[in-house]
């Protein structure tokens, strides 16, 4: 479709607007929302049931052959903050409203993938909402073979299921590991065990002048 068209002179609005238009022509109203930052990047959000169809349209019809990455975002603010709170004090009040980023969204978990056009040199960030209680989406393996490992990683880090993935083994963690580390409600245990020394900008040297300063 767009792969044989000449490269726009200014790689800005027209080129990136056209990506959104082309994708809309392919998948119709499954394209929920989009955002084009002129000269920068494109974000599209699609319906979860059209996730695989989007991948197919991007690769086979629009020439986005290069698979960059696939991951997810947990939009819930971390209940632990930065893990810098004094454990003896009651936990501070935190803003726990979920605000999604570019191209909007309605759910806590969102898929995030990026594919690139190898001759036009533009990429597109694809997002899709996921059911919070049962986050499952179709696997992209049949479209981009390289999605295999990325989906395994996303599965273990966020607990997102991929329909049609042959083998969602853990990539990094032990098989019997419990929890999904990149979810915001998974605490960073190192911070829970020992307070982060980096709160103090410069730690005083032992025996130094300002040892009684703002250290522990």
């Amino acid at each position, binding site marked *: 479709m767009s792969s044989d068209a000449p490269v726009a002179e200014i*790689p800005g609005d027209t080129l990136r607007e056209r990506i959104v238009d082309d994708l809309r022509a392919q998948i119709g109203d499954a394209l929920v929302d989009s955002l084009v930052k002129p*000269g*920068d*990047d494109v*974000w599209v959000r699609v319906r979860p049931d059209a996730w695989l169809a989007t991948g197919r349209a991007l*690769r086979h019809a629009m020439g986005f*052959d*290069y*698979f*960059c*990455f696939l*991951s997810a*975002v*947990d939009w819930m*603010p*971390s209940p632990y903050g*930065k*893990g*810098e709170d004094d454990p003896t004090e009651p936990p501070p009040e935190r803003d726990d409203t979920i*605000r999604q*980023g*570019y191209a909007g969204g309605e759910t806590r978990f969102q898929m*995030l993938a*990026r594919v690139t056009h*190898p001759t036009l*040199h533009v*990429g597109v*960030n694809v997002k899709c909402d996921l059911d919070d209680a049962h986050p499952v989406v179709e696997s992209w393996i049949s*479209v*981009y*073979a*390289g999605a*295999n*490992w*990325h989906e395994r990683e996303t599965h273990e*880090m966020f607990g997102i299921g991929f329909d049609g993935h042959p083998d969602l083994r*853990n*990539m*990094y*963690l032990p098989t019997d590991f419990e929890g999904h*580390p*990149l979810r915001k409600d998974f605490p*960073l245990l190192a*911070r829970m065990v020992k307070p*982060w020394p*980096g709160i103090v900008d410069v730690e005083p040297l032992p025996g130094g002048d300002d040892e009684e300063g703002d250290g522990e």
Partner: protein
Amino acid sequence: MTSTESLIDRRQMAYIAAQASDARLNVELETEGMTLNIGPQHPATHGTLRIIARLDGEQVVWAEPSCGYMHRGYEKLTEVRTYPQVTTLVNRIDWLGSFANEVPFILAAEKLMGIEAPPRAQWIRTILFELSRIANVSLFLGDLGVQMGAITPVFMAFRDREYVLNLIEGATGGRFHPNFDRIGGLKDDLPAGFIDETRAVMKKLRTFCDEIENLLFGNEIFQSRMRGIGVIPKDVALQYGLSGANLRASGVDWDLRRDQSLPMAWDKVDWKVWTHPDGDAFARCWVRLQETREATMIVDQLLDSIPSGPVMAKVPRIIKVPEGEAWVSTENPLGEMGYYVVSKGDLGPFRTKIRSASFNNISVVPWVLKGVYVPDIITILASLYFILGDIDR
């Protein structure tokens, strides 16, 4: 021909035929294969990558890398650090070209803040970036010899890489983990004498490239072990997301230094993107060799045109990055290294997706190792060139 001779001949033929049919029978009966464990502590794995290969005789029928021996959870750690603190972490992703890891993250933060480093800082960034590439890839070129059984090149590589590391140390204070890039510019200007010193070292490195080209790439054994081995066609390379020299060796003319506009100095100098049509192990190594030489010439030209001025833009003392999302990737020594940074207007990133080159480059291993012979496993892994910290992050 006498009759006895032809009789022996016929007997021999019958014997061979029987053997062959036995062998065929064995295949049909699916004789028990063998599982070969390579690593996690193997010299060819640059760290602790483990490869499990199922063999049928000498041939690999199935192979799968097993990662995670060095997973440090940087994506989670960035969520509890401030932006300036993150460079310390990302330095350790590809530890042979550390400075190059800092640059895309800093660029992403700068993009979100809407600031740009002053020209001199951009130039110095690009110079240090290319020096990281030279340090990184020159070690690869030497190590390549070791994995093929040639010991000499690695000594040459360590000898000449030291000159480059000295330069990086002279400018940044750190040989391996410079932590020199700041939001808005650089920590410091170049030290006195850096420019002349660098010119001399670049000359040495070009000699090194010539030596390696003569010694290794011109060697018949090397060629016969590399040519036609581990061929990755263009479409496979693209859909696995291979990048850097691995992609260019499959005939894709794509270099992020040229093909995107970044506030860096690559577009200010004249250089060439090397590609190779073959897609085999030799092509991948050859492209890297040419790129190293090209990088020395990029550095030379940048040294000629380096502008004067400050190396730091005006940035607030406490850096808060406005809400937004940004993706920046650069052409690192290993390939496309990118950061997807989500900011909520805090002191630190809300989420960082680190897209490292080796993770994608190695994900093609199960595909490419299918059907190869055991000695070629090492050749292919060496030619794909990965760094464990860059896979596991």
